[in-house]
């Protein structure tokens, strides 16, 4: 029974997972902070030590943020830009690629 080798393998795997978990936490941590802060009232934001789940969940923050700037408009604009860009790129690039690959025309290799 290769008991000691198996245990060494498991220990290595656990150690590697530990590193990955630590790194994952540091990747997610700012997002968690963002969500937690978005639900706090203004005086709770800068408290030390920081509160992770604020007692009265301030959902009004989202409403206020949405109303402060024309978010609906901005979102629509971003959506339009993204869609038009992607569709435009698909059409023009596939056309150009087809031409360069299949059709023999003068100046093709430039």
């Amino acid at each position, binding site marked *: 029974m290769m008991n000691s080798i198996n245990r060494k393998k498991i220990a290595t795997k656990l150690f590697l997972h530990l590193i990955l978990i630590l*790194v994952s936490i540091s990747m*997610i941590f700012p*997002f968690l*902070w963002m969500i937690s802060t978005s639900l706090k009232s203004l005086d709770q934001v800068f408290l*030390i030590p920081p509160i992770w789940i604020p007692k009265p969940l301030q959902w009004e923050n989202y409403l206020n943020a949405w109303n402060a700037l024309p978010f609906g408009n901005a979102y629509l604009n971003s959506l339009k830009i993204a869609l038009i860009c992607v569709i435009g790129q698909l059409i023009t690039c596939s056309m*150009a690629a087809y031409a*360069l690959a299949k059709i*023999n*025309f003068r100046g093709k290799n430039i």
Partner: protein
Amino acid sequence: MSKKELKENLWGFGFIAPQLIGFLVFSLFPTVAAIILSFFDWDLVSKPKWVGISNFKYIFFSGESDFPLALKNTVLYILYTIPAQLFLALVFAVILNNVGLKMLYRAIFFLPTITNSVAISLVWTWLLNGDFGIINTLLKSFGIEEPQWLTDPNLVMLSIALTSIWWGVGYYTTIFLAGLQSIPNVYYEAATIDGANAVQKFFKITLPMVSPTTFFVLIMSLINGFQVFDQIYIMSNGGPAKASMSLVFLVYQYGFKDFKMGWAAAVSMVMFAIILTITLLQFKFSNRWVYYER
């Protein structure tokens, strides 16, 4: 030319026309305009005035030009981010390649990258806040003195570099992971039969086989690193005392705050020359350390 050939030519040009027109209007024309503009003095409202190379003389030699400072800051930023990003991304990719749950970890690592750089810069501005930021709170609870991340001129570029590393590591890890997974297993098996241990396998098999990926990552991160702007504009606005002013930030400042389009164009041209030179040098030296499979 026969009628058939003529028709083929027309079809060909017709198909690439949209792409070509887009390239001409949105890429080629502005680039040429910028080259020409760097020899003029223009403030967006009056007529451009020809000044020859005095724009270039100004940004290099005049005592009050910020170009040397911006260049130094940008080089500092690159020295902070690129080795760290490369090293971390490669290490994480190697670890990920050898454990289970790859998909979950990869998704988590990639999460910062798919987030908008503006949003990330805002969040990190608050996290790194000298008095109230969480990072400093944590450090204080360990008894370490709290560094003023964004208001200390010596630290500000490091803080921005840290944000960028956090943001970009996931992307490069994914690229390295793809590169690692294309290494055929036979090499590792042969090495095991010959009695190699893990360290030897890493340095003799993994590193050389992944060098094309490393090359690509190095070029992309250099080109992007020279053009850093979002984080600087939001997190420190070039301050304190211009300690975090990068080259692109200088272009923005000259162009839209000081209204000296000529200077801005000149800085852009110099940047272009620098990045082009570095990329060409990298290509030239690549055959010394990049292994391609025969």
